[in-house]
């Protein structure tokens, strides 16, 4: 098996009385598409929030390449190779699509404010490189024709894709997609599935939160299931699909009723 990229170790997080994650262990391997599923409120988005440093876990830790992310600043976590999208679209609406992606590429630039102000050679080079790279990514995601449009004026589906493009702009090793197909019709879902595969084939590792089973079965290498903050399954899609506990979690039947 390939190398472990990200590992959640005994991760627990409590919000007051709510235990959003309860002793979750999860490994994400390089180059795979891992789907994270579970009923609403199961703790999926919370996993993203803990990994990206939005919340500090109550106990347990997150390891990237075996190194703990404890206390690492959020922008540094991004710089180290983890990028994400948001369940509720959170683009920079007053920027163009292109600027949104360039903002992502800025994370690896060495020149700062003064270099940009005085037009130093390195700053100019990096600016141009970022712009080219952003266009490439928009092209790759299939929305380059919208590059000069303000993000908030874009059609819904394009906005969802732009979120992915912006995340790719940061050149992540792991890209985490939070319900990227929400609100999509079946045809759009098929398109998106292709895009996600393409992203994986380009060398990225993908952690995907999704509800649509057929989409997940089609593209994921592995499926992990959360229910009430606990991992109740973690296996190949076909195995998880027939797991009794998973079916119960989705149907809302208590497990001791069987």
């Amino acid at each position, binding site marked *: 098996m390939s190398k472990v990229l990200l590992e959640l170790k005994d991760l627990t997080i409590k919000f007051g009385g709510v235990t959003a994650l309860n002793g979750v262990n999860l490994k994400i391997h390089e180059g795979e598409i891992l789907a994270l599923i579970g009923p609403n409120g199961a703790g999926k988005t919370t996993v993203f929030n803990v990994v990206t440093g939005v919340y500090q876990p109550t106990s347990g830790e997150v390891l990237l390449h075996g190194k703990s992310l404890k206390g690492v600043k959020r922008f540094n976590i991004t710089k180290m190779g983890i990028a994400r999208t948001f369940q509720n679209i959170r683009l920079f609406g*007053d920027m163009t699509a292109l600027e949104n992606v360039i903002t992502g590429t*800025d994370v690896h630039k060495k020149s*700062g*404010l003064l270099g940009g102000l005085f037009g130093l050679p390195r700053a100019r080079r990096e*600016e141009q490189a970022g712009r080219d790279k952003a266009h490439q990514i928009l092209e790759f995601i299939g929305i380059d024709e919208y590059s000069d449009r303000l993000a908030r004026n874009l059609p819904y589906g394009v906005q969802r894709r732009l979120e992915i493009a912006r995340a790719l702009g940061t050149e992540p090793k792991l890209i985490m997609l939070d319900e990227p197909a929400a609100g999509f019709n079946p045809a759009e879902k098929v398109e998106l599935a292709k895009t996600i595969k393409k992203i994986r084939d380009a060398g990225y590792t993908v952690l995907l939160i999704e509800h649509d089973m057929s989409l997940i079965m089609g593209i994921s290498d592995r499926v992990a299931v959360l229910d009430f903050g606990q991992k109740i399954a973690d296996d190949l899609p076909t195995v998880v699909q027939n797991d009794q506990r998973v079916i119960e979690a989705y149907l809302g039947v208590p497990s001791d009723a069987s």
Partner: protein
Amino acid sequence: MKFLSVFKDLNLRDKGAEFWENSSPTKRKVIATSLVGLAALLPFMGVGILDTPVSDYGAVLVYPVGMFILMALGLNIVVGKSGLLDLGYVAFFAIGAYTMAILGTHTSLNTWEIMPIGIALAMLAGFILGLPALRLRGDYLAIVTLGFGEIVRISALNTKAIGGPNGIANIPVPPSIGPIKFNLNDQKAYFWVVLIMILLTIWMIRRLSVRRAGRAWEAIRQDEDVAELMGVNTLRYKLWSFSLGAAIGGAAGVLYGSKTLFIAPEMFTLNVSILILACVVFGGMGNIWGVMVGAAILAYLPERIRFISDARLFVFGLALVITMNFRPDGILPRKKREKVIVKKVSN
């Protein structure tokens, strides 16, 4: 009421931007040069409607008009570009002015030598205030900066060594630059210095806006959490924003000190911060042209109508309220337009 609705929908900002984008480089150069030239000639245009019957027109151009524009541009970096509500901007103006006053009266340094010191000190103050304060959000930041503005003024008021409530008098005027002399009876030279400072500020802001720093500020303004998650070191760029704004306020302060020849704490009240903020909001937050127009109007109008003395502030306030009612985003709001989509031709 037709006129009013036209006024409401008029999008000069986008029209102007479109016109600029469609102009050839030579045309742009001609326009820019003539605008700057026209501005430089403003001190000679104090006749007829432009004149300020009661106040000295030439002096009004320097202060408040020129300096308000300069400070509004500085505050706009903080409030308009980065979305950080700073209610204590006057503090940096005061630091610049006091630096000029103290060094000008106690050392042999002249205004031009004191200028970089004043700017550096204001920047440093911005940095020191920002380091803890910029970890706060929204209203809390506003309150802390408001407090800072007051602390600076009250400290000056209570420090005997810098004159306390009596302030500092006999501040020297700037030494002449070649044939251009600085003279309070004819303030053209001051105006040209302010103009140069304004041009430098415009250059800086325009440059940074399309670079990493400008994107970082824009991202922070729109969604600070997402900015951070997309890799923006938000604290660093907020500090830059704050310090650059402070630097411009400080620069304005140094020149102000060297022009009024006398300063006292009572000149640096909260009112000044509010007024500069009003310029930014009135003109159009985040858009330098709007901010400049706003500052020019808010600085000039009260002087222009000074002859109605008592009703002056009332008329001024009324004009402000009416305008904001019809143009809540300011006279020239930030970019709304989109560039025409140019479809890529694949080969």
